């Protein structure tokens, strides 16, 4: 089966609404097929802005800059981009300026591309190493629970968090 993401309409709108209810206004991103529908909605919504990055770590510092002027944001990327962010995530611990990330997983469950496995399998250990709490979405029911839990951790608990969109949820290419 090849997932054409036609089912993305089922969950993307509600997911965006939840983030907006938690005060998120900005989405720095590197495009990912699995979360492109979500980003298009965010781009079209007048309550939110998107920012195209050349590399994911730029998003960590943009989120820190937005926090300095009291604005909330979430960094959106494919899980492989987490590897690019590691040094910049120092900001979140050094300055206690936590970041909210949204990761579309690759190399995790049903993946066919061998290049995706090393970083995909490193996601949880890397998050643990840099003090980011994972909140995994594996099915529709997880969306409100994980999103609100992650937003609470970041915006009230002062801890960085990642909402992880599992390939069990997104569907893997050629699964």
């Amino acid at each position, binding site marked *: 089966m090849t997932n054409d993401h036609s089912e993305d309409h089922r969950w993307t709108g509600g997911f965006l609404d939840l983030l907006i209810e938690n005060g998120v206004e*900005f989405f720095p991103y590197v495009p990912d097929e699995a979360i492109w529908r979500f980003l298009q909605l965010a781009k079209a919504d007048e309550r939110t*802005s998107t*920012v*195209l*990055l*050349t*590399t994911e*770590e*730029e*998003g*960590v*510092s*943009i*989120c*820190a*800059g*937005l*926090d*300095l*002027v*009291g*604005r909330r*944001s979430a960094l959106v990327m494919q899980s492989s981009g987490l590897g690019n962010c590691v*040094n*910049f995530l*120092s*900001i979140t611990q*050094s*300055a*206690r*300026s936590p970041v909210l990330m949204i990761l579309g997983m690759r190399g995790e469950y049903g993946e066919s591309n061998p290049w995706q496995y090393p970083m995909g399998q490193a996601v949880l250990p890397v998050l643990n190493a840099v003090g980011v709490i994972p909140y995994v979405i594996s099915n529709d029911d997880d969306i409100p629970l994980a999103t609100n839990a992650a937003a609470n951790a970041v915006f009230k608990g002062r801890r960085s968090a990642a909402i992880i969109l599992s390939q069990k949820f997104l569907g893997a290419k050629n699964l």
Partner: protein
Amino acid sequence: MNNEEEINANRANIDRRKLLPHLFPNHEEYLFVSGLAGASRDAAALTGDGAHLFALGGVMGAATTLGLGVAMGAPDKKVAVITGDGELMMNIGSLVTVATAAPKKLSIVCIDNGLHGETGKQPGHTAQGADIESIAKGAGFRSAMTIRDEAELTATRDFLETSIGPRILVAKVLPTGPTKFKRLMDPPAVRLRFRDAFLANQRKS
């Protein structure tokens, strides 16, 4: 490149300690983000380590996009990023991100000594041909300027005030040390100082 052109391309006659006070005589009108090492020392000296400065002490390459975040979140404020050539080279792609996002009131000042000053003055790319002004124009900046002599400093005020933003000024400086200034090195305190001051000012206006 002939000899004369080569000498001109490497010419740098500005004392960096005079640079920022010349560029920002009314520095309290700005929000500042500065990159690690010398850039943060010069910026701290300019502002008296003020609440309108968020100075990094690490995460090399982060200053430009951190300033972009501030500029997007506070679009009515003038925002300036103070960075060095070594830091800017580390995330040179951030110039593409800034030009594409196009915050009108963001200025980037690159203090270009062609050296990695903090790690022992090892030569950098700009000492060997890389030209930040050209890269910035290629990235989409409509306003990019390089200065090499203190006589050119007067023209920079106009550039910072009236050119189409975002803008970048590259100042070719002598390889002398940054301004001596001891700033607060407690990052959570620096963040809160900046954030609280900004939000308090916003409530007033």
